[in-house]
């Protein structure tokens, strides 16, 4: 069986590198990367495709500007996607989840070859968790949210989701839209060889006009973006090196950073 998969991939500012200054995140000079949950979705796609024995995996992303997207999306290609599709259009600036979903749905329709459409359960930065469901609705496809296990079964797909006290197993025919949680898998590390190959994989770029859209509706305005500011503890350990190390480790354990 051949299974064509589209994985919707959002690129986010590298959260580990963001500093907080005056309660606001400093985003200047922070590189963008493929979100962690999107990597789970990509890994799920690779495993499903392997199980099916063939098919094409496309990474699809929607951005307002160029934001070095051609560089960033290579991470998805290096992980194993066969092709990338970028929808880039300044008219997407400030688009809300409905707007992004409209663009994604139109792009999936234009790609055509899609049996399974995968998403992360939310994005690392804004985490609204709406986009997967909205796209499924626009396409009129069945959707499964928060899958923690996926398998091909009976020509369709079978998914497990964690409910509070039980596990729910759902089955759906293809095409289907699925959002995955991080427990679903451990995304594979990216090898140098695959990075090299990624540079040669096809990348398609569309604008909204290419999708037959001119604007995507509702505009979003960020009113404030406040972060918790954490003060450094400034603990100094004195004494012989061994004592310092012991005291340091004890302090880390006490803070719950290690050894839980």
């Amino acid at each position: 069986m051949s299974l064509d998969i589209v994985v919707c991939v959002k690129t986010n500012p590298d959260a580990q590198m963001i500093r907080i200054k005056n309660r606001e995140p400093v985003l200047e000079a922070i590189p963008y990367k493929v979100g962690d949950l999107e990597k789970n979705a990509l890994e799920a796609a690779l495993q499903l495709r392997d199980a099916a024995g063939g098919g094409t995996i496309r990474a699809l992303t929607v951005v307002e500007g160029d934001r070095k997207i051609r560089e960033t999306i290579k991470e998805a290609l290096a992980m194993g996607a066969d092709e990338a599709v970028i929808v880039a259009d300044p008219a997407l600036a400030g688009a809300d989840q409905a707007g992004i979903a409209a663009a994604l749905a139109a792009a999936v329709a234009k790609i055509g070859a899609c049996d399974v459409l995968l998403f992360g359960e939310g994005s690392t930065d804004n985490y609204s968790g709406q986009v997967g469901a909205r796209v499924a609705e626009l396409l009129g496809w069945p959707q499964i949210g928060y899958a923690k296990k996926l398998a091909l079964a009976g020509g369709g797909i079978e998914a497990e989701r964690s409910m509070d006290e039980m596990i729910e197993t759902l089955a759906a025919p293809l095409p289907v839209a699925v959002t995955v949680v991080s427990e679903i898998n451990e995304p594979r590390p990216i090898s140098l060889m695959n990075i090299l190959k990624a540079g040669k994989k096809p990348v398609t770029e569309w604008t909204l006009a290419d999708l037959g859209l001119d604007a995507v509706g509702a505009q979003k305005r960020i009113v404030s973006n406040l972060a918790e500011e954490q003060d450094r503890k400034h603990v100094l350990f004195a004494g012989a090196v061994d004592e310092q190390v012991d005291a340091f480790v004890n302090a880390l354990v006490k803070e719950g950073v290690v050894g839980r």
Partner: protein
Amino acid sequence: MERVDCIVVGGGLAGLAAAYGLAAEGLEVMVLERGNYAGAKNVTGGRLYMDPIRALYPELWEEAPFERAVARESITMMGDGAHTTVEVASDRFAGAQPQSYTVLRARFDQWFADKAAEKGAMIVPNMKVDELLREGGGDGRPGRVIGIRAGGDEIGADVTIVAEGVLGMLASAAGLRAEPAARDSALGFKEVIELPAGVIEDRWRLNEGEGAAHLFMGTVTRGMLGGGFVYTNKESISVGVVVGMAAMLQQAEPVESYKLLDEFKELPQIAPLVKGGTVAEYSAHAIAEGGIARVPKLFGDGYLLAGDAAGLSLNALVTVRGMDFAIASGYHAARAVATAKKAGDTSVAGLARYERALRESFVLKDLETSRAIPRIVENPRLFMHYPRAVSKLAESVFTIGAQPSPRLAKTVWKGARRDFLSLATLKDLWSLRKM
């Protein structure tokens, strides 16, 4: 084995300058950088001299993210409780074409990496190169460098440009250069401290956008080879201390070198400058100070060395350079490789043009002119005796005591005779002629 035309090890200024040039020539080039992004691990004091490199990649410097054009240079000799500062300002320092800019590497290197990527270079962060692959070596000869091993994969290249920075571990392991010795190395500690632009301009008496560079020598390193520095950036200052490793090892008591920076910041003349600032970045890094005598052979079969990895840096006490050498060596490496590729000869003979180009450029010329400096500055009197003596003399000139004062000339003469009229000073002066 997968292959590319050229592999660059290290996404510092040398590696990025090489990658930019190679990609512009249409070669397939891959930069491997172990940090999270280019610039993540790179430390500099502060300031990039432009005149040596302005004509190389002229299109780049118009839009480069420089911090401030340095309009004023100061050097302070620090004695015991007294210090003397020489301040030099010139309209030409920060004129239409400023001679130097302060830079922050985290920002500058990322920008440079983007520029190289726009030209088509492949920049791979988070990728540490573990080994240079060789073929046909033995008997103390390195053989031909045929590529690299990183993250378990082997990738081949016609030429590998080793721009891994000052420690040169891959190059040493492959026998392409000697390991750096303590005598030829210094250690630098630096903090980037954020302050509002207006505060910086007030504290340093600067016009908007202009910057200051300030070096300190003497008690700041407890008389050891080295010194302190303060460079003003747009909205932060770079404050650091550099100290010679050999000088440090010679101390009777072990030196906790990182404490030197804290001590420096607490000095009465520095504390008010850093007051109220937030430390945004802390770093420590080695510096090669061996000069031309320690520059290894810069090329061989299938490889070139560039930047700090080739020992291309120069500490001449009042000026510190390395970034301009790194950019220029990367530029010449790219040109040499592009020409060698076109001629189909990336062997020793084909790559020899790289070292020739560097010999004809300021890089090896300036290092040659300064050949004697690394040995001159080993003289501890430069960091111990003179900063004290100068400050003491200057202090006496400005002192009015309770007793009737002697003539000024007499005060000066007394101080000069005490601290400067000696055989040792004559010898020191004589040695300085080679600076």
